């Protein structure tokens, strides 16, 4: 048998068989990956689902007991108290009960936003995408369709990672803002409870507990952060609007003035544009060239400008 015959004897595989083989291998890989991720999720999920083990009563039972403090009739009961001592004791009990309920809910809320929770979400997303890709691959007819399915899975996974990454990075800032805002309202409540009822009535205290609840919401935290950044921007705008410096004409200042006004009275537009460009590139763009030349606070920058523009040669 010649070499040519040997070669011709080897089994020929059609493109369809190639596709089937490739499909089988890819199926096996994707399914193995999905199983591994499922196992990881199961382990990780256990951590996320684990609640505080020290509680003797369930959260539901605890909240049921405290429900009485949210009865709309508390105001009537309060008004029916005849002496200050009873009124004050009743007010304090209702407000402390409400604050406790709000604290319990807030603790659950923050727990649900915890890092473990977002990790589980990421794991769930990836597994979902892996199974979707696996099912698409299993029904795909051509290698091109198989590869398209895999790339869709990878792209989807990346989107999921990005989304969860930003969630993970943003949430601590929002939780921190909520905690700070809650403390501020709680101080108001605690101070109020030290006052007699004619100075801090139950109605006023109930309004403050509503504020305490609101301070622990994401919407409130986002609004507070937006407001704070707006105030900072406004302060910076004011700073930009009003610049003050003390007169100090040094050698670099003289050189720069001669550079901008070579004849002492008329501006050389090209030179002034060069100086402005230098100022813009060196963090002094918000100042006029005049204040830059004469202001004491710009003396170091002037010296650097003279050096960079080669004006002292």
């Amino acid at each position, binding site marked *: 048998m010649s070499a040519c015959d040997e070669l011709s004897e080897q089994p020929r595989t059609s493109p369809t068989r190639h596709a089937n083989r490739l499909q089988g291998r890819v199926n096996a890989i994707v399914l193995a990956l999905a199983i591994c991720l499922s196992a990881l999720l199961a382990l990780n999920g256990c951590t996320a689902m684990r609640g505080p083990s020290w509680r003797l009563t369930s959260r539901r039972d605890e909240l049921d007991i405290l429900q009485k403090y949210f009865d709309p009739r508390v105001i009537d009961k309060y008004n029916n108290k005849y002496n200050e001592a009873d009124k004050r004791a009743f007010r304090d009990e209702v407000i402390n009960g409400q604050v406790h309920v709000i604290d319990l809910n807030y603790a659950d809320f923050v727990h649900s936003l915890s890092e473990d929770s977002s990790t589980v979400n990421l794991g769930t997303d990836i597994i979902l995408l892996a199974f979707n890709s696996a099912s698409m691959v299993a029904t795909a007819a051509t290698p091109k369709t198989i590869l398209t399915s895999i790339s869709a899975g990878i792209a989807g996974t990346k989107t999921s990672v990005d989304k969860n990454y930003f969630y993970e990075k943003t949430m601590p800032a929002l939780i921190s803002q909520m905690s700070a805002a809650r403390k501020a309202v709680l101080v108001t409540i605690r101070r109020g409870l030290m006052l007699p009822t004619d100075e801090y009535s139950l109605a006023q205290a109930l309004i403050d507990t509503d504020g305490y609840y609101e301070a622990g919401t994401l919407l409130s935290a986002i609004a507070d952060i937006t407001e704070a950044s707006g105030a900072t921007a406004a302060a910076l705008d004011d700073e930009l*609007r*009003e610049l*003050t410096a003390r*007169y100090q004409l040094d050698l670099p200042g003289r050189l720069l003035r001669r550079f901008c006004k070579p004849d002492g009275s008329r501006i050389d537009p090209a030179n002034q544009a060069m100086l402005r460009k230098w100022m813009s590139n060196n963090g002094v763009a*918000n*100042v*006029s060239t005049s*204040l830059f030349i004469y202001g004491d606070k710009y003396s170091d920058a002037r010296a650097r400008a003279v050096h960079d523009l080669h004006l002292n040669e």
Partner: protein
Amino acid sequence: MERTETLTYVPDNALADVVSDFESDGAMVVTTRQPDGNWTVVAYFSTMPPETK
């Protein structure tokens, strides 16, 4: 956006140059004599400098 720049302790002999330079930058300038004899120059600009617009 309107903004102001204030230069304090400008001596007599530099006042004309300082005022002229601020006006060349497009400002409306107001000068005030300080108790120590120097000048305070306040330049009012109607816009930000060119590179920050």
